[in-house]
């Protein structure tokens, strides 16, 4: 153990990943970086074109950019980063390597996902799939677009098999011990993901793909939307939970602290499995064809996420405080000074946590059965998820890669890299403060999301939008600069940073000694899957039956872009 940059502890490895593992993990992160770059370019152009001050060349369509932005960032960047991170941490905590069959399974998933990305890139760039990342029918993209999305999502199942196998292998070797926390949380995240993706995979395989190939003449639009949102809400928890893993498991090690509890994080993840799926109707509060009572029931279930969220806030801050006190802090709040603020791998996720406070509060407003009418489909919504996904989660992923890349390339995270990384945090939080604040205000003033620049033929209300639109656009410029600096640091860490004498260890925290062992019931996955299955049947059976049976005729396909 030695002193690292600016007070953070850097552990050098007792353990180094063998080459096949390193290749596997890096392959995932590299695709994520490409997707991030494409998505960021699209985002910059969208942000400045919506100010009305700059007009895009006619060849670049706003909605095509928006589709590229959504697909690349919401599906490709996130999924590849998450799979890479979960594989890395699971391998490390279940013995240091995967077995060859486990590794082959993960590579199989990677190939499927990459094939999906290629198909989607072709469909989007040729303007044959300008249907946004929600791809609501009856707007019909070319079939390879839907097949591509299917391959990305289904491909992501296979590394889940790798994680389950490694977890089982470890459990078999240690029958009486609680599983390693990282592996446990990866299994929980994947259980959530497998159940969640069932909705959209069903929509793709049995509705969108056959319909886009012309095998079905029409489609039931309301039902398709409902299958999409079965997946569309839990997907956000699939993005969030890996960030929670970093907070719960990785951060304690770097701040000389201990994991606060061996029970609380497991309970949190089990609660996420239970309350993240039977809630999708809160995205469809204003939809016809669904009785209000079902919308209300799912709104209620949505609110339960308050509990694991606030538990996490408590556990993370308690862990910080104990770490600070362990290093000699005694007066109230003196512990704050003991934390490694100058290390971007700590600063980035903590800034992300601060942004999660307004992000979470906004989420409560969105889920509120009545207040939702004021903000639904306005710019408030992208304002909200650019705080949660595009700040809290992204800043944490950024910190993860600052650990992962050096530990996989054997290079050093130098003080210069750290200074540039801190600049990324400053650019990102400034940009998001501007952009997200402006989007929230514009939403309340009534400006719709997913809409190219317009002045609505001089309608009075548009005057009140002008200033905020400019602020939104300037925020997008800061954010783009942040991504440019970030990717610069990544290229440096991959190819130019000095070789480390001993490889930087990917930090995995230890549970504090006083923490009681978790009850074995938390590892009885069959039980939790059965409960969530029952909740899904209760919350979804009747709305789906009604949507499928009350229809008079489906809608024929259209290309309206």
């Amino acid at each position, binding site marked *: 153990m030695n002193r690292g940059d600016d007070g953070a502890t850097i552990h050098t490895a007792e353990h180094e990943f063998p080459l096949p593992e390193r290749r596997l993990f890096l392959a995932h992160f590299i695709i994520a970086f490409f997707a991030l770059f494409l998505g960021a370019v699209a985002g910059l152009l969208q942000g400045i074109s919506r100010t009305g001050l700059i007009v895009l060349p006619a060849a670049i369509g706003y909605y095509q950019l928006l589709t590229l932005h959504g697909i690349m960032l919401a599906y490709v960047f996130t999924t590849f980063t998450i799979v890479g991170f979960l594989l890395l941490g699971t391998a490390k905590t279940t013995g240091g390597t995967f077995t060859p069959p486990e590794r082959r399974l993960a590579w199989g998933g990677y190939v499927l996902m990459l094939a999906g990305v290629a198909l989607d890139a072709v469909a989007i760039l040729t303007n044959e799939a300008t249907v946004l990342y929600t791809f609501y029918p009856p*707007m019909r993209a070319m079939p390879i677009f839907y097949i591509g999305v299917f391959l990305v999502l289904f491909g992501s199942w296979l590394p889940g098999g790798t994680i389950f196998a490694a977890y089982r292998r470890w459990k078999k070797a240690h029958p009486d011990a609680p599983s390693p926390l990282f592996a446990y949380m990866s299994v929980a995240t994947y259980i959530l993901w497998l159940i969640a993706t069932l909705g959209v995979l069903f929509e793709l395989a049995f509705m969108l793909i056959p319909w886009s190939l012309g095998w079905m003449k029409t489609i039931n639009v309301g039902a398709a939307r409902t299958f999409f949102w079965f997946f569309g809400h839990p997907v956000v928890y699939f993005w969030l939970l890996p960030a929670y893993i970093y907070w719960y498991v990785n951060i304690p090690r770097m701040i000389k602290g201990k994991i606060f509890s061996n029970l609380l994080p497991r309970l949190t993840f089990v609660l996420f499995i239970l309350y993240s799926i039977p809630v999708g109707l809160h995205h469809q509060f204003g*939809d*016809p064809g669904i009785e209000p009572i079902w919308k209300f029931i799912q709104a209620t279930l949505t*609110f339960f996420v308050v*509990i694991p969220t*606030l538990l996490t806030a408590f556990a993370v801050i308690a862990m910080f405080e104990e770490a600070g006190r362990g290093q000699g802090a005694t*007066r109230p709040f003196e512990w704050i000074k003991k934390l490694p603020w100058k290390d971007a791998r700590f600063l980035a996720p903590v800034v992300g946590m601060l942004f999660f406070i307004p992000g979470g509060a906004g989420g409560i407003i969105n889920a509120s059965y009545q207040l939702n009418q004021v903000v639904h489909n306005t710019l408030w919504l992208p304002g909200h998820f650019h705080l949660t996904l595009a700040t809290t989660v992204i800043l944490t992923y950024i910190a993860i890669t600052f650990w992962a890349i050096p530990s996989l390339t054997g290079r050093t995270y130098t003080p210069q890299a750290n200074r540039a990384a801190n600049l990324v945090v400053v650019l990102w939080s400034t940009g998001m403060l501007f952009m997200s604040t402006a989007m929230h205000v514009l939403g309340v003033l*009534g400006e719709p999301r997913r809409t190219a620049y317009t002045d609505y033929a001089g309608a009075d209300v548009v005057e009140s939008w002008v200033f905020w639109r400019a602020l939104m656009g300037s925020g997008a410029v800061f954010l783009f600069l942040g991504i440019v600096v970030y990717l610069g640091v990544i290229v440096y860490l991959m190819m130019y940073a000095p070789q480390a004498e001993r490889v930087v260890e990917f930090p995995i925290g230890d549970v504090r000694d006083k923490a009681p062992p978790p009850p074995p019931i938390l590892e009885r996955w069959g039980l939790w899957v059965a409960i969530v299955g029952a909740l899904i049947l209760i919350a979804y059976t009747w709305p789906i039956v009604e949507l499928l049976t009350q229809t008079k005729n489906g809608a024929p396909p259209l290309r309206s872009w």
Partner: protein
Amino acid sequence: MRLDLPRLEALWLKISIGTLASFLLIIGIMAFGFHLHPASSRYAIDPTRVNETPPFDQPGLYAIGPNEYRAVIIAKLFTFIPSDLTIPKGATVHFMITSPDVIHGLSIPGTNVNIMVIPGQVNTFTYTFKRAGEYLLLCNEYCGAGHQMMMAKWTVKEE
């Protein structure tokens, strides 16, 4: 100062549960006490025959009571039919809306009108226009190349 973490944790958990309970109570009272619900309906329609299906064969504004109206609206690429209307101040409007093509959304900035328009379904919502002035109706769900031009203007006149 020594920290009693288990005690603080239990207190925090109580606060969390209390917060959750108060949120649920508020949305419950608003829904079932004040009957505030989002747009909803259970009325299917053949999306390929909207123009021949009553009442959408004659979209428009119909008086159904003292200062009470039914607005039968078709949202289609890239317009609302009827487009421009004038109603008196205080008018209660029952919206009935559907789409013959793709998904649209109808929202009116400055009001609570925010209705999803889905082909194959008729959606309904009721709103009372208490302020006079000009209202912008806009499409708030991406529907294609001309989505940003899809709008209508209503005037609410002082009587």
